[in-house]
């Protein structure tokens, strides 16, 4: 469970009030106990299924220091951020940084997931702990986190894809638009099946679709708009929660979807708020809202946002969204042939970039301050770059992800900062040379070049 959760939830922000009930030292003590338990089981089974011993000792030392320093919940992010600088030799700083990031993710999980916290308290049992009693799974979003097989989807929930719209401006069904030779609906279902236990497609009464590994339902009454689609999808779902999407969005973002889904525990709906609008067709709904949706259909109220006034709504703001999806590509939908062409172009660029990334890519984080932060509407962006990447590559990649920075923070050529901005690496060195290499774990700060006050 932990591995998959980490890669999908690593950027999850924390609600301030949830921080107050839990101290980092408490979580770190539990993680230390989990390390001890894992060590014990490993020795007992006489095989090594846990991370290598160097990584374990780095983690153990980090946790012990956290328990000793006892930083406040509000200061723990920063404590972890600075830890590699103050506690690592230069040759091991990469490994220490990586471990600090892992602990940060575990800290965040401990806040956001009751099940993870319970798992931790019970000593982080592994999947082959045969002599341990299987624990009762509380009803929750997470599916079988005790058995983190890579073939199992992550969420014990349903993905609903609405294909029943008219596509009148496109001139042909949007669900069948081809990307890399396959209909878009095939790509969407494939991606969603990796994340959700069940996929439901809601189609118009006479709509033709390819064979798909999903449950197909049809609108009982055609063209009742998104409220109708959501209603029929939720009605067909076997789970308690549904992530609902339209079918004309080529760039679903698993990290963002995971985040949205993870927030449903205390709400009836988790809905992004992007460019001053709710995005009801990229939201997670609790199936208990079905009666309210029925009422809306009966009254002819075909706009989903009428629902949000009546239920516990988690509105996810832009700055949170941008942490996972800086450009908001999740909401880029296609209505016209020109939109489709543009999406094809972007698809091609993204997939070319992805294919250049291999397991030896450089992962770094850009932290934005001042005007850069206000323009980008986010504090930081994670980047994955090729080996031997330089600061220039960082700026280019950043320019691609956050075009609003071009001209104001990054030069129009996209390979340097403008003269009013400066770059600092890891909070230590101000670096002017854009050909300076970047290492995995580096934090690249972009701030004003003038510190006058």
């Amino acid at each position, binding site marked *: 469970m932990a591995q998959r959760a980490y890669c999908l939830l690593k950027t999850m922000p924390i609600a301030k009030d949830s921080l107050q009930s839990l101290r980092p030292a408490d979580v770190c003590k539990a993680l230390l106990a989990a390390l001890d338990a894992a060590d014990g089981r490993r020795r007992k089974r006489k095989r090594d299924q846990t991370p290598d011993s160097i990584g374990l000792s780095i983690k153990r030392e980090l946790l012990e220091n956290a328990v000793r320093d006892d930083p*406040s919940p*509000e*200061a723990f992010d*920063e404590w972890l951020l*600075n830890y590699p*600088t*103050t506690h690592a030799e230069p040759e091991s700083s990469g490994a220490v940084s990586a471990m600090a990031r892992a602990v940060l993710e575990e800290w965040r999980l401990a806040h956001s997931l009751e099940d993870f916290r319970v798992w931790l308290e019970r000593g982080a049992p592994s999947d082959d702990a045969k002599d341990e009693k299987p624990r009762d799974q509380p009803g929750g979003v997470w599916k079988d986190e005790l058995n983190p097989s890579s073939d199992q989807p992550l969420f014990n929930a349903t993905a609903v894809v609405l294909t029943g719209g008219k596509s009148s401006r496109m001139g042909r069904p949007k669900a069948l638009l081809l990307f890399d030779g396959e209909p878009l609906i095939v790509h969407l279902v494939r991606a969603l099946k990796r994340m959700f236990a069940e996929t439901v497609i809601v189609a118009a009464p006479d709509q033709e679709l390819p064979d798909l590994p999903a449950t197909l339902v049809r609108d009982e009454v055609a063209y009742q708009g998104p409220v109708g689609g959501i209603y029929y999808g939720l009605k067909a779902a076997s789970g308690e929660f549904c992530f609902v999407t339209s079918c004309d969005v080529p760039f679903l973002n698993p990290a963002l979807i995971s985040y949205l889904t993870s927030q449903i525990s205390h709400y009836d709906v988790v809905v992004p708020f992007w460019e001053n609008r709710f995005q009801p067709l990229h939201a997670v709904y609790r199936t208990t809202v079905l009666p309210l949706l029925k009422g809306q259909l009966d009254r002819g109220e075909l706009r989903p946002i009428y629902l949000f006034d009546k239920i516990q709504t988690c509105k996810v703001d832009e700055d949170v969204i941008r942490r996972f999806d800086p450009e908001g590509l999740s909401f880029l939908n296609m209505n016209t042939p020109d939109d489709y062409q543009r999406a094809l172009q972007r698809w091609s660029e993204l997939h070319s970039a992805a294919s250049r990334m291999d397991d030896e890519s450089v992962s770094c984080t850009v*932290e934005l*301050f*001042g*005007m850069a*932060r*206000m323009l980008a509407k986010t504090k930081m962006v994670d980047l994955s770059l090729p080996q031997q990447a330089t600061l220039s590559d960082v700026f280019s990649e950043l320019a691609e992800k956050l075009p609003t920075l071009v001209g*104001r923070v990054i030069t129009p050529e996209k390979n340097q900062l*403008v*003269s*009013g*901005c*400066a770059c*600092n690496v*890891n*909070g*230590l*060195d*101000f*670096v*002017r040379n854009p050909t300076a290499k970047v290492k995995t774990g580096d934090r690249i*700060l972009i*701030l*004003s*070049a*003038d*510190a*006058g*006050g």
Partner: protein
Amino acid sequence: MYGFHGRLLQIDLTNGHTSSSELEESRVRAFLGGLGLGTSLLYDYAPTGVEPFSPDNPLILTSAPLVGTGLTTTAKFGVVTKSPLTGFIGDSLSSSHFALELKRTGFDGIVITGRAPSLVYIFISNQTVEIREAEHLRGKSPRETEAAIKAELDSPAIRVAAIGAAGENRVRFATISNEGRHAGRGGVGAVMGSKNLKAVAVCGDRDARVFDPDRVNAIASSLRHRSLSSLTDKYRNIGTVANLAVFNRLGVLPAHNFQQSTFADSDALSGETLSETSFARRHGCASCSIRCERLFKSLNGEEQRLEYETLFALGPLCGIKDPDTVLEAARLCDLYGVDTISTGGTLAWAMECGEKGLLPEAEKFGLCFGRPEGVIAAIPAIATRTGLGALLAEGSKRAALELGGDSLDWAMHVKGLELPGYEPRGLKTMALGLAVSPRGACHNRSGAYEADFSGAVDRLRADPSRGTLVAASEDFAAVLDSMIICKFLRKCFTDFYSEGAELLSKVTGWDCTGNELRRIGQRIHTLKKLFNIREGWRTEDDWLPPRLLADALPTGVGRGTSLTPAELNEMIQSYYQARGWDNRGFVSAENLQELSLIG
């Protein structure tokens, strides 16, 4: 003369005499206007060893050659006196319409001596001077005073610089304020209060001549254009408050009286957050294209200006994390006319003393780190010298001397001036700049921190190269403060001395070169040092508070970095060498000759 009127005004408040005299061109050629002229006049007019609150301590207001030329950021004036906080030179700048109107009176400088028998204000209209009764203005804030005087004199064209209650009560870090701006540091307002002078009102129509108006206009247009580039983006679009998040991230944001170098709750106070949640509007000084002022909405719906130093000093330095408390504290500082940095620094000292049991009254007053009510209550108490406020009104140095014991180690000042929001242990060039500045711990009389942010030096390491950097930065600042050009424009010049020399020449008609301008900066700075030496400066006055040398950087990036006495001493020695002074920091005879400061 071009650029100057060539006239000085002397006012003796004791007997009400006023006189004007010629301002020699040789003086302004050597020292320009602004703080250069002010330093030169102070050196000549202040008797050696004068007590700051003595009637004989001159309070000098100065204009400058670029004022009124339409060049961006030049609407500024200087205030120079002997500081009651440090006992050394007290030089301060303020801005905007008062500066323009001061120039229009036809005087380049006003030297005020004596003490009026009762509270008065001065009204200068063109070259006519009146000393008017001001008892009815006692206790009023500077803004209220301004409004009252304008109404009384029935002229909206009049501009007023005034003290608040703090100045009247000789709070040692009281300011002189005009249009919401302050000649802020060193207690120039207290000197004004000691003279029973509530305000100076000015009005005039005398423009100084410009030697080559067409060329000056062309330069003005070019400078205006450059002032709107990315180089000033921070100032134009977020303000100096942008520093808070950055400094916290770099581990150079002093908090809890320099016991920490990061502040856990900085996010709520950051410029980015304030801009999103509380921004009201943007404003600027007269004649300024940058317009760096940010006003934020406070809880009661009023607008309050906030700059980084105020945010730091009344926020993290005192452990305060709530923006509304900081805004209210800033409002009170404006209302009473006190320097926000020295206020915050003195309060933080009191908080630490209270926490550690040396000052029980602090706790009774509510002065504890992070407690808003203590800060809010303390500022009026300081301004009126009530209760504990009477001790705090003396500034942290004197208060610590009075309290004694370990409290001396917790008073974070240099020469009596409280430290600004740049943690010296994480900014080693700045550490040197703070230690050696004639003004005390000042972030404006040099831009020493610029080296630390440039990447050209390792900010966490001390080395002997910093002496040259600090000296050059001081000279640059001295020239900017005497032309006068705002420091926020400094990055917009490609070769400042050449461009500045041409600009000066086209205004004044002088044939000024870049080298001459550089030398003028050295001369101005050296004269400040000479004044200090005359007034009792000793080598040990160029140093930093004990905490910065005893304790390593406590939190954040660079945690554990220390600044040792040996390192500081080495840097100070390198600075004296760069200046051509002896190894005790005294100006040499050769230096005097080189800079034509003989006599």
